[in-house]
């Protein structure tokens, strides 16, 4: 039995690291802009296609593409927030929600139109190399993804706590008007924040594709997991997203092991609904705080 559970848990942790990375982007945007970005999954899907086409058309290895992808998607996120989301929503919370929903529907269905619903994968020489950890064999790319995701999360933490931009963003999250009075450019900081959140997706996509696939619907599965992670960890909480992501990866792997693939998803939704109902501010927050 242990021989089954340990590999499942380890595999769960590997997927969990990617979930955490996707959730970090979401939680960062929520923590500062106080909006749930419904287009998050669609942007991840877009990033996966970008990595795919960089590989197929230009022979670029996903890991080599990572810095370019991160830069490119940072710019995309910045432009989206500044050019579309803030102007189209007039700054009203409920409208921001609807704008991101509309964006996600547009992006998803355009992808369906241009890329068709075929499942695409990349063939990489190292994709099937295994690493032995205790009783489990873990595919090398998944281990790389796990470590890289944690490094990226550390980097993000550094940016948010040690740089001027990060400090400005956090100041706005706490007290928008006050930060504005201190001369912080709120519009710029919002867009920076959205850009960084989107850049997380680019990194996740580069780490994910070697062992995963891409279809126009792929983002949808991830975004629900990411919502769950963020809710579990507490909206806007950095550590929460990290721990929540890893935890959910394990929950999914164990549910998949015991309930089968399709009902394994139910485990995640159950966690989602239960957390929303009983601890909407997250597992690690004082009760009642919102």
């Amino acid at each position: 039995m242990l021989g089954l559970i340990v590999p499942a848990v380890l595999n769960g942790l590997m997927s969990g690291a990617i979930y955490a990375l996707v959730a970090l982007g979401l939680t960062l945007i929520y923590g500062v802009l106080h909006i749930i970005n419904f287009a998050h999954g669609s942007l991840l899907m877009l990033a996966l296609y970008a990595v795919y086409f960089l590989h197929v058309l230009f022979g670029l290895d996903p890991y080599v593409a990572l810095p370019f992808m991160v830069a490119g998607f940072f710019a995309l996120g910045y432009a989206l927030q500044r050019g579309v989301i803030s102007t189209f929503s007039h700054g009203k919370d409920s409208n921001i929600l609807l704008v991101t929903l509309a964006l996600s529907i547009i992006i998803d269905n355009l992808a369906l139109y241009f890329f068709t619903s075929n499942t695409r994968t990349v063939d990489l020489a190292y994709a099937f190399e295994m690493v032995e950890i205790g009783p489990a064999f873990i595919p090398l790319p998944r281990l790389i993804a796990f470590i890289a995701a944690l490094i990226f999360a550390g980097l993000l933490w550094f940016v948010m706590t040690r740089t001027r931009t990060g400090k400005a963003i956090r100041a706005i999250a706490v007290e928008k008007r006050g930060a504005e009075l201190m001369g912080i450019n709120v519009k710029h900081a919002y867009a920076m924040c959205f850009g960084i959140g989107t850049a997380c997706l680019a990194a996740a996509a580069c780490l994910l594709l070697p062992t995963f696939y891409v279809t126009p619907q792929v983002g949808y599965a991830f975004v629900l997991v990411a919502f769950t992670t963020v809710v579990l960890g507490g909206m806007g909480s950095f550590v929460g997203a990290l721990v929540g992501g890893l935890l959910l990866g394990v929950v999914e792997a164990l549910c998949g092991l015991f309930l089968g693939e399709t009902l394994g998803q139910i485990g995640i939704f159950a966690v989602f609904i239960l957390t929303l109902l009983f601890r909407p501010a997250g597992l690690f927050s004082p009760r009642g705080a919102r």
Partner: protein
Amino acid sequence: MIKREHTGNVIVAVLLGVCALLPYFVLSAAWTGFAINILIFSLLALAWNITGGFGGMMSFGHAVLFGSSAYATAMLQLHLGLNAWLAGAVALAVGALVGGFIGALSFRYGLRGSYFALVTLAFAEVFRVLASSFTVTGGGQGLSLPLGRELANLQFASRLDNYTFVLILVLIALAITIAVRRSRFGAYLIAIRENEEAAKALGINTFRVKVLAMTLSGAMAGTAGVAYLQTFLFVDSQIGFGTVMSFEALLGPIIGGAGTVLGPILGSLVLHTLGEVARESIGGAPGLNLVFYGVVLLIILRFLPDGLMGIFKPRSRAQAKPEGK
């Protein structure tokens, strides 16, 4: 100021009335089918409008109410051999119950805004996965009703009869909407939308009002589900609980004007008519109509944040609207 809104209502009412009569005089059978579609989506839009429009409870998973009723009717008829009319009536109660249940759970724990949107979305998703996993619900294939085009089976010999049936349902839903708008209950709902704390402080039992609104909305969305099933004699997990249906539910009200009486119907009519025109001109690749809907939604949010009915609102008030939290 009030006069302008009144004129707007009259203009839109006349317009909608004329459109509603078109199938009886001009439209071909194919177009009548299209009109039935619009009416079903109008029903769903009116249901969303009760909670999302009047109450400001933005649901991203209204499909869960639509789908529950559609599945309930189908299962009662197929598995228990219940008469279609009876099954339909029970299914409405199912929709109301599911709505009340989700509402009670969410509001009991004080979920609102983005959190409420998320939890409704999650419920729809859970129902979708469940419906596609069990044989009682037809699994991945969905459920089909046997053909029996008689009124006793709640099926219709002609498209026009079918249209009349759904039109009557829409008129009833419209009457309910007007009644809610004029009632104390409706005033409570609007008060909750504008400022829930203040409403509570004034002694309104906000929890009860919100759960009631979800129950009513559930019954109305359930009507749409039953009408859909009896028209197309088919439902599967994607149609019943998919995000597209949830999206449809909120598009009509947002585009037409959330929290207005005629807005949801106007929105559905305009959106689908434009969508059809676009399809005729660009060609109908899968998903393109949704791209189009998304673009329309963006444009409306950008230029007419109060929806089409907002055209008739005095400008100053539309802009001075307080930010909802």
